């Protein structure tokens, strides 16, 4: 066995020339994109309303009337507990714990399909907290203006709060997307595939450093791309 650096230079040329790993790397890239993209969509779909619910029941929005305030308190406590539990379980453990749930939702607990529910369940609470914090940052005066105009809560959320936080929400989506790219690497445990899985199998288990380096490079580029495009989007919608 030679040292890793020599092995790297030796293997790098052979990989590029031999091309035998490229199809697998291509599939892995595609799998990562699918896992990240689909679970990001569901994360936003679930996390955004959840974040709004956390905000509306949270202490900054407590009603002056005690009955309503009590209902808000219990609702917040329950939601917050679920969010905290899901966020405190390490993703690897969550992946395994959720196998029966995953099977119930998508029919399998394996592969790309099987990794999407756990990814969503792990990321949605995280995203919801980001949204909750963003909404709390909205100027209280804007909320008061909406109330003074006779807006319903629904109108206030849809026409004032969400537009005001749009740049922040876009930034939160980017952060979540990058986190999902990272999480998806662990889905190899359940045969999830993707670049992360490839890196672990070749680089860690088979000592194939070049394949690992290529996959990691692609991951870096992917994250970079998400961030750059995301920043541009945020700037586009920022009017502060």
């Amino acid at each position: 066995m030679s040292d890793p650096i020599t092995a790297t230079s030796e293997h790098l040329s052979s990989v590029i020339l031999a091309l035998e790993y490229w199809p697998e790397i291509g599939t892995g890239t595609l799998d990562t994109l699918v896992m990240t993209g689909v679970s990001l969509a569901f994360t936003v779909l679930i996390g955004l309303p959840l974040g709004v619910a956390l905000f509306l029941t949270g202490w900054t929005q407590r009603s002056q009337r005690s009955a309503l305030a009590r209902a808000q308190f219990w609702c917040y406590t329950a939601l917050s507990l679920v969010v905290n539990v899901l966020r405190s379980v390490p993703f690897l453990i969550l992946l395994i714990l959720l196998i029966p749930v995953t099977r119930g939702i998508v029919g399998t607990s394996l592969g790309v399909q099987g990794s999407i529910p756990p990814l969503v369940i792990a990321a949605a609470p995280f995203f919801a907290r980001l949204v909750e914090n963003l909404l709390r940052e909205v100027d209280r005066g804007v909320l008061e203006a909406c109330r003074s105009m006779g807006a319903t809560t629904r109108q206030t959320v849809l026409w004032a709060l969400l537009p005001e936080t749009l740049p922040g929400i876009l930034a939160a989506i980017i952060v979540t997307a990058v986190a999902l790219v990272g999480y998806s690497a662990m889905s190899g445990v359940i045969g999830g595939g993707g670049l992360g899985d490839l890196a672990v199998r070749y680089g860690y288990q088979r000592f194939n450093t070049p394949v690992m380096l290529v996959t990691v490079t692609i991951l870096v580029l992917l994250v970079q791309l998400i961030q750059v495009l995301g920043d541009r989007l945020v700037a586009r919608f920022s009017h502060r």
Partner: protein
Amino acid sequence: MQHCSFLRPTSAAEVIEARNIAKVFPTHEGPVFALQEVGLAVARGEIFGIIGRSGAGKSTLLRILNLLERPTTGEVLLEGRVISHLNESQLRRVRQRIGMIFQHFNLLSSRTVYENVRLPLRIAGGLSSGEEAERIGAALDLVGLTSVARKYPRQLSGGQRQRVGIARALANRPQLLLCDEATSALDPETTQSILSLLRDINRRLNLTIVLITHGMDVIRAIADRVAVLDHGRIVESGTLANVFLNPTHATTRALLAESDANGHESCDAAATGTREQLWRLTYRGATVATPVLTAAAREHGLDVTIVQGSIGRIKDEPYAQLTLSIPGANDQRLQQFCASLARRGAHCERLS
């Protein structure tokens, strides 16, 4: 909610009325009485100013008028109908017809000027997009901001932002406009332009305005009537000229002195360099154009020194307020002198 009987205009002279309002905030250190025994009634087309120091309860009082804050006791009437017992969804309909502007404008930074002004119309609903456009156009025209409709609040100056706030408050044709320290975040020049805009709107639309402020100059510039709030109570109220020329409460006097409107406070004997008893002479209206002082002085053969004074206008009414020293006269002659002044329409009082 389609049938809103409480929104039907009535013949009631008072647009907004608050009766015996108290507001108590429970705290850990016991109840805090933010407002006590507060009552006010504002007639259509009137500009009513509420002045007080921070913590006097004026912000709470203003929020009670549109029930953003519910009073602990007492009732609020809009156009003669009690609105303080309505539930939240009924109140939302009421608030859609009460405009409000704020110290920090509270505009949506993510929306254009046009969209900001459109917000209350969307909230109230029931307008076609054509009617919406017409209302928004009219509101922006009224405040002189038609040219910046497509800009974002960030691109505007403070004065322009408050104009957007005013356009937004007026878009839904309110019966009443509430102003929450609307000029306190603006420089003096911009303050004057916003105040004259408000006065202009008040005249053109006969719109009733209630404003709160801590500055006497704001009150002086536009209010018809004023209430002075101190520690949660109205300690003095009346027409602008009455409160300005004959302030009775210490808080009012202090607020007047700070704004340097009339400078009553500095007219003690020592400050003016005389050892004589000082008198304050006040007259207003048509009397200002007549020689009341010299006529009375000649009649009684008295010499009078004017040690301080101001002559001007308060809300279009001319007034004169002079501080006099009258050397070498006994009490009886002074009393006759005062009676003679009173006959000519001037009020005279001895300064302690």
